[in-house]
């Protein structure tokens, strides 16, 4: 159905803004509960082995300690099927940092101190945490879809491999060839709000205030683990202090908190420390990616091969869709992508903003830059020349694809025509200056599992109920706007309620599918409500009000169209000639994200993605010490994320283009496409500035010092 737009498309101020600027918005740890006890976890200090002895006497004897939980006294879970959630069900240790117990006490200070008093003895086994493409135990993923809960080989449900034509023959015959290997390190989400669960039981009902991207999914996971009817579990989360994928899945800490509350018969608060987040809430897995491109003398690609080795955990399979982006980006008659997993004795990875796309497009778009140079073509022109008419692997049309418009408009806004083709040609004082470009893409799906209830009051007020989430993404505001238009009322007449499993179920905020899925559900329900008012109530809401609940319909177009957001990103980079320090004074992106619901919050999301992409390009790397098996730079002083001073001008624009097939709003996903390609644009600009090609993220100054930056 089509909806007349009044609220949608207006830059409404964030509705949750006033609460947030005062610090009055309530996050997981802040829900008032009666006499909370505090939990501090015990974590394994070996990478692989067994716990053979635990001395908890000293900890248990500390005043104000309520209980010490270990695998010996932990409640048996109803399901230990999900290895990450099977907390304290055996003495096995599968990674360093794994939860092996917890101390529950009257105060957080006591719990933490007492945890240090527990003595653990292990039987250690050899571990292996090295990601190498020549490992002999690489395997093709089988069933990793949606945390091993769906069908399909990769996490997003895609097949692990794809092939069209004869890549090897085409590469051998190509006049211009590129064969390069790119690597990306472990990245950690590091949302500002540490993961927290506050759990309480009353009779056999469990309530968890949990920082989560999806209360429904978290509830279902917890209900399964504890063997409860989902109706007896309530998860509440009106505000999320950042997530970026790390709070989609509910992780082991939430299970531990619920167990602890069971033991002490009181509400238990468990807020992870920043350091614990580096082993307990997932991370972006490291990759080794080999890209081979072949082109004809006119700069038309004849072959594309993208072969990926990506790490997973032995504890639980997780297979990221690193090369899937390559399947849809550029035309070439011969093409291949493969994914192989390296099983390591490390914590379980998870989705992180644009999972797979972020790493995959760094490699592909760096390679495209290298290939453009090899072909003697401008990198923007080279991309346009290889733009496909239809999805190159499936032959399906795109629901909408305006990448070329993004490239052209971005080039114009950025002043790309002032760029010289030669690298290391521009110097301002001590700084070498260069510019680079990259394309962006991210799938724009709709997730199933959404139901909305709308209550219309005779006063014209409407209450919209759906267990959606706002991670800072603007859901409170954008979904209210969608509802207002769908109901034909003003934003003031809509009261939205989200973030609580007491509301109708919703899919998690993830996969850039949040607003598109929840919005579709809201529009559907609003349409039924209006039809009902017209058909049975003469167009007037009855005095007692009216309530309609309905599920989100499937999208009949989903099987016939390739649905993706796109974008083009441009970066200006300065590299210090003496020190190799890299600065990014300017980033500019133009995106194709369908119809934009709220230009103000949408712009913020795109800017935020690009900023995180800058951070990925220059700063972020979880360093694993192979001897111990853990990330050793596990705090915000050592694991750098971009600070104010690292971020210069960032601009985000979009092409005004509604997508006719994705959903009734005509929108596409914007949460992730912003981070995709930023790192490549910066790496390409670094090459333009210095002549040095950095194929291994992050681009730290030592990589630019190794070769003299300037020939004297």
């Amino acid at each position, binding site marked *: 159905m089509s909806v007349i737009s009044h609220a949608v498309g207006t830059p409404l101020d964030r509705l949750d803004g006033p609460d947030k600027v*005062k610090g009055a918005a309530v*996050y997981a740890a*802040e829900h008032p509960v009666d006499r909370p006890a505090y939990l501090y976890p015990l974590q394994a200090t070996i990478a692989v082995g067994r716990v053979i002895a635990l001395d908890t006497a000293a900890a248990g004897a500390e005043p104000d300690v309520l209980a010490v939980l270990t695998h010996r006294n932990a409640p048996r879970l109803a399901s230990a099927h999900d290895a990450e959630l099977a907390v304290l069900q055996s003495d096995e240790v599968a990674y360093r940092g794994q939860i092996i117990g917890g101390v529950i006490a009257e105060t957080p200070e006591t719990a933490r101190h007492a945890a240090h008093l527990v003595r653990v003895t292990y039987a250690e086994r050899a571990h292996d945490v090295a990601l190498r493409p020549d490992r002999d135990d690489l395997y093709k993923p089988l069933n990793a879809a949606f945390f091993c809960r769906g069908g399909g080989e990769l996490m997003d449900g895609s097949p692990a491999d794809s092939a069209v034509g004869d890549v090897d023959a085409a590469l051998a015959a190509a006049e211009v060839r590129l064969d390069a290997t790119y690597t990306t390190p472990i990245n950690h989400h590091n949302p500002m709000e540490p993961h927290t669960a506050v759990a309480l039981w009353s009779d056999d009902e469990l309530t968890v205030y949990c920082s989560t991207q999806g209360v429904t999914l978290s509830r279902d996971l917890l209900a399964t683990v504890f063997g409860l009817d989902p109706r007896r579990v309530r998860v509440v989360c009106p505000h999320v202090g950042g997530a970026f994928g790390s709070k989609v899945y509910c992780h082991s800490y939430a299970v531990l908190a619920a167990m602890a509350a069971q033991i002490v018969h009181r509400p238990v608060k468990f807020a992870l420390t920043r350091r614990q987040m580096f082993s307990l809430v997932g991370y972006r897995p490291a990759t080794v990616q080999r890209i081979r491109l072949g082109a004809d003398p006119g700069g038309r690609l004849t072959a594309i091969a993208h072969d990926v080795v990506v790490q997973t955990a032995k504890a639980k399979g997780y297979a990221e869709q690193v090369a899937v982006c390559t399947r849809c980006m550029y035309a070439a008659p011969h093409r291949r992508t493969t994914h192989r997993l390296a099983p390591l004795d490390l914590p379980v990875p998870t989705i992180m903003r644009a999972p797979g796309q972020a790493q995959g497009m760094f490699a592909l778009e760096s390679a495209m830059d290298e290939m453009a140079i090899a072909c003697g073509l401008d990198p923007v022109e080279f991309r346009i020349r290889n733009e496909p008419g239809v999805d190159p692997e499936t032959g399906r049309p795109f629901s909408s694809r305006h990448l070329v418009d993004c490239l052209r408009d971005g080039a114009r806004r950025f002043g790309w025509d002032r760029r010289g083709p030669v690298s290391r040609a521009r110097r301002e004082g001590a700084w070498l200056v260069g510019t680079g470009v990259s394309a962006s893409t991210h799938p724009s799906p709709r997730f199933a599992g959404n139901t909305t209830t709308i209550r219309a009051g005779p006063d014209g007020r409407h209450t919209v109920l759906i267990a959606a989430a706002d*991670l800072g993404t603007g859901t409170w505001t954008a979904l209210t706007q969608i509802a207002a238009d769908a109901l034909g009322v003003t934003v003031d007449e809509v009261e939205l309620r989200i973030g609580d499993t007491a509301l109708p179920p919703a899919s998690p905020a993830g996969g850039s599918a949040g607003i598109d899925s929840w919005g579709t559900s809201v529009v559907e329900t609003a349409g039924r409500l209006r039809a009902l008012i017209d058909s049975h109530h003469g167009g007037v809401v009855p005095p007692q009000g009216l309530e309609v609940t309905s599920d989100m319909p499937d999208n009949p177009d989903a099987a016939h169209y390739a649905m993706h957001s796109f974008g083009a990103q441009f970066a200006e980079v300065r590299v210090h000639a003496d020190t190799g320090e890299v600065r990014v004074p300017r980033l500019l992106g133009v995106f194709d994200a369908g119809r934009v619901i709220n230009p103000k919050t949408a712009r913020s999301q795109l800017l935020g993605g690009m900023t995180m992409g800058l951070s990925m390009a220059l700063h972020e790397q979880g360093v694993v010490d192979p001897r111990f098996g853990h990330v050793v730079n596990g705090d915000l002083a050592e694991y750098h994320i971009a600070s104010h001073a690292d971020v210069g001008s960032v601009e985000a624009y979009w092409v005004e283009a509604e997508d006719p097939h994705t959903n009734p709003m005509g929108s596409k996903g914007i949460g992730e496409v912003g981070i995709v390609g930023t790192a490549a644009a910066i790496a390409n600009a670094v090459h333009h500035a210095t002549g040095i090609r950095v194929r291994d993220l992050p681009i730290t100054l030592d990589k630019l010092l190794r070769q003299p930056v300037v020939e004297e």
Partner: protein
Amino acid sequence: MEITLRVDGQERRLVVDTRTSLLDALRERLGITSPKKGCDHGQCGACTVLLGGRRALSCLALAVAYEDAEIVTAAGLAEGGDLHPMQRSFIDHDALQCGYCTPGQIVSAVGMLAEAEAGWPSAVSADPDADEVVLDDAEIAERMSGNLCRCGAYVNIRPAIAEVARR
């Protein structure tokens, strides 16, 4: 031990452990959750409060050591129902997303403007001995770098601060 803290203009009696940070005293003992715990080690700025008018990190301050200080949180910046101009400007510029670093950013910005007003230089000041500080984008960025924002709202936060600085 029992101590008195003066928070947002109110005297509050509470019992703390010597180990209790000012941040935990506010959040866990007094239920004042405007200052946020992001790292608990002085590495993120989310817990920034004004201590005696100067911005400081409440996670590294022990509550027992600050009995005599005037403590202001973001909640206390809003007088009555009215938002502080910095809070209003943050909303206008959409200088927040998840909102978790936001109270710290705002308190830090208010403290930072007072420092600039006092003529304090920064690491990027062209003339460190200048009498007046000109708060251009680079100055604001440097002075605000102790407040991390993972959502990447920096490019909206700085214009929000600049607008208040101009008034």
